[in-house]
């Protein structure tokens, strides 16, 4: 593509502060940064500053306070950021990843019925995985309550802790995203449900790219280039998995101090699909499910998606465009 | 301190108390420590206060020093005379060496360092503790601590000196020597001294005037001028005679209470 196109009409260089998590579900972001794909697409007129987070809240706080312009983030914080700012603060401009979530249980549990009376962990009360688990149990006729009562006890806890509690036998299973699925499997767990099987086309959003409305208004051109970068990164990830996996391992190693086990990445890789489609429908359905299990009030997601730039980029490259809801 | 005005009531007094009353505590627990005490001390006068234990002598000195406020009455100290008080306890700063303790008032007055050193050494010699400058208070004997406190008070260099049983923990000989020293300093610097003691001979040895306080409430019940010419000796018959008179008065007073 075009390397250096100095922007006409922009006064001085623009800084884009982009956030992401050093995590396998953020693979396009990690690979894009590691391989310089974003820098290349953004060109010399834009200075890229990357920030890493290890959980959604800080990223949302950073967006709210103006310390961050765009970030890769999960569906849950996306909805929170959108609804708490009454639809003002953020827009989804692209998808990034789908899938990579499963219910892992102790090997002796082989059927839904056996979950009765067991303790299952989710990452956080009311988040996508939590809702998915509750809704699924409900469909299977098992009762749960917000307080952890009912037929199955749901224990919301940090994913890191889930590994500990599963290892020590304090819980019987967990509905978690990668790489924790693989980690629990390696710790002797069995994937009872692959969440993809519950969705149409086996697709549901796990990571998407949001930008702050302010930045979007001020620098639509930069957002356009960012989306170009995202599309290119996805392209890279999908076409060169081995190099991507290596890049992810190294990059995470640089941030966290320890390279992520390459075997683990390879193990998790097939459960994930890297797509530019934010799969808006899955977000909506998830929200409906949350309402159905009584975890939230209905909120309007009108205006959350602004996929113009994505569709322009896709169209320019002759790829199929996505549905703007 | 608000009740302490710096203008003297009469131009001839260094310290003037007018109807000074002091009540400690409140309500039913209140203790009347001093009751309408009036007292004029001339500049350069050496006044000794005697009285039974707990009659309010320390209270009086604290009030004159401005460390406490009287509940009633008025205290006036001559212009610019911040009275120096030597407490009944040594009240040394445990974190400072003996030297540094004595140096504190000099530092607070902004005396230059070299002069300070000199003065500290001189004062420690005066109290016969020249070798103990580097020790800390907890390494001293009771009497040594009292002498350090004396040196520290003398370092204040004030025209009005309030002393609360300054020689109570000293043996007779050391005491005699310090009597001489104190008298010398008093004459040289023309000090006004208000001196509390339990030793009536000491009072007779040092005082121009001896004042007797009654017990609870403390009131001035008797006073006498000591007309014995100086230099005096503590074992001279004149001093003994005065002491005997004071003792009799004191005995009568304490006896009245014990009855």
């Amino acid at each position, binding site marked *: 593509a075009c390397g250096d196109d100095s922007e006409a009409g922009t006064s001085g260089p623009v800084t884009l502060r982009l956030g992401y998590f050093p995590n396998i579900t953020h693979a396009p972001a990690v690979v894009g940064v590691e391989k310089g794909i974003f820098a290349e697409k953004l060109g010399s007129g834009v200075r890229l500053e990357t920030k890493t987070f290890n959980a959604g809240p800080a990223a949302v*706080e950073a967006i709210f306070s103006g310390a961050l312009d765009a970030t890769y983030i999960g569906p849950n914080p996306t909805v929170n950021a959108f609804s*708490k700012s009454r639809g003002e603060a953020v827009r989804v401009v692209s998808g990034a990843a789908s899938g990579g979530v499963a219910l892992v249980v102790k090997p002796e549990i082989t059927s839904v019925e056996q979950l009765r009376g067991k303790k299952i962990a989710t990452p956080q009360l009311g988040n996508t995985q939590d809702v998915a688990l509750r809704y699924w149990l409900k469909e299977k006729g098992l009762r749960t309550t*917000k307080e*952890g009562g009912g037929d199955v006890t749901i224990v919301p806890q940090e994913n890191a*802790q889930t590994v500990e509690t599963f290892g*020590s036998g304090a819980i019987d299973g967990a509905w978690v995203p990668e790489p924790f699925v693989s980690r629990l499997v390696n710790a002797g767990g069995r994937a009872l449900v692959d969440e993809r099987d519950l969705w149409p086309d086996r697709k549901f959003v796990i990571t998407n790219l949001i930008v702050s409305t302010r930045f979007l208004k001020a620098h639509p051109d930069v957002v356009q280039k960012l989306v170009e970068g995202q599309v290119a990164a996805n392209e890279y990830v999908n076409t060169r998995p081995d190099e991507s996996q290596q890049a992810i391992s190294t990059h995470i190693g640089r941030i966290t101090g320890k390279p992520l086990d390459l075997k683990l990445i390879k193990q998790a890789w097939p459960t994930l699909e890297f797509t530019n489609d934010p799969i808006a429908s899955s977000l909506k359905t998830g929200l409906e499910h949350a309402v159905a299990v009584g975890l939230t009030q209905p909120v309007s997601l009108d205006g959350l998606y602004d996929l113009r730039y994505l569709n322009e980029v896709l169209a320019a490259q002759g790829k199929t465009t996505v549905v703007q809801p | 301190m608000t009740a302490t005005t710096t203008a003297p009531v009469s131009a001839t007094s260094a310290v003037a108390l007018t109807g000074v*009353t002091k*009540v400690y505590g409140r309500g039913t627990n209140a203790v009347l420590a001093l009751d309408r005490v009036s007292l004029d001390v001339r500049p350069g006068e050496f006044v000794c206060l005697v009285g039974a234990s707990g009659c309010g002598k320390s209270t009086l000195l604290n009030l004159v020093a401005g460390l406490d406020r009287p509940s009633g009455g008025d205290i006036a100290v001559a212009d610019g005379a911040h009275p120096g008080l030597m407490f009944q306890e040594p009240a040394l700063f445990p974190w400072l060496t003996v030297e540094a303790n004595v140096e504190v008032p000099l530092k607070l007055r902004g005396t230059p360092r070299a002069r300070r050193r000199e003065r500290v050494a001189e004062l420690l010699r005066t109290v016969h503790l020249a070798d103990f400058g580097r020790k800390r208070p907890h390494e001293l004997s009771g009497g040594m601590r009292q002498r350090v406190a004396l040196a520290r008070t003398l370092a204040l260099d004030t025209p009005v000196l309030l002393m609360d049983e300054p020689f109570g923990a000293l043996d007779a000989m050391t005491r005699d020597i310090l009597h001489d020293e104190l008298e010398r300093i008093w004459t040289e610097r023309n000090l006004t001294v208000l001196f509390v003691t339990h030793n009536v001979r000491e009072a007779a040895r040092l005082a121009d005037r001896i004042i007797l306080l009654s017990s609870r409430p403390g009131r001035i019940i008797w006073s006498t001028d000591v007309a014995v010419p100086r230099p005096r000796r503590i074992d001279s018959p004149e001093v003994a005679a005065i002491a005997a008179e004071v003792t009799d008065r004191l005995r009568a007073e304490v006896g009245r209470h014990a009855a």
Partner: protein
Amino acid sequence: MPRDTLTRTDAELSGLDALDIAGREKETSRAARIWAATWPKLAALALAVAIWQLVVFSGWKPPWSLPGPLVVGEELLRQAGSAQLWDGIAVTLRRAAVGYVFSVAVGLLVGLAVARSTVLRAAIGSMITALQTMPSIAWFPLAILLFELSEKAIFFVVVLGAAPSIANGVITGVDYVPPLLLRAGRNLGARGLTLYRYVIAPAALPAIVAGLKQGWAFSWRSLMAGELLVVGISQTSLGAQLTYARELADSPWLLSTMIVILVIGLVVDAVFGAADTAIRRRWGVLDQAGR
């Protein structure tokens, strides 16, 4: 030269009048004292709220990121009307009380043991501060290993947070007991435990209370973190609410929860303050600082 030292003016008070004055002084000052203790608090509160409101009005940050006092106040009222807040407070306070009592017991015991025994002091004395600096999350895995997902895991984290701080207070207190009082106690026949009971403990009390206060802060903070260990086992604790508020990016909720925590902190401080004042009155060191 005889001098009249016994003059009295008529305007003087009699001894009994003086006692009266003392009594009256007290009465007039009671209302004044309460007012003197209250107005600065109100002023500080008013000032804080005013500045906050001004910053919000200035539009420096968007309202969803920094909500104004009114919005937070409404949220607080709404919360106060719901059972959830009160349940949360009840759960957390119960845990805090149990955890703290336990920490106090452990802290006092360890503190006394270390202060008393030279060998123990050399062995683990410096470990106490080191343990104090260990963040709560580092203990989570161990807590889970030992206690799985029970409330005990929370207590474990709380005790590891608070006990060292209390022990340190005890050690400081014991170390600074005036030697003269120790000697007096020993001479009066106090030995070993009785020396602790009659001399060392009361003499060290101010430092111990200071340590207990710091220990409360540690235990409370550890509790807020530790409550995430066992979420949703039946009730929503204050610590969990704080985290949820943050995860939901719900600033008014977060701020109103912070206010609740501050208020609890104020109440607890009042308790410690009362203890401290009682000790200072006993020791005769009250009312000197202002002068």
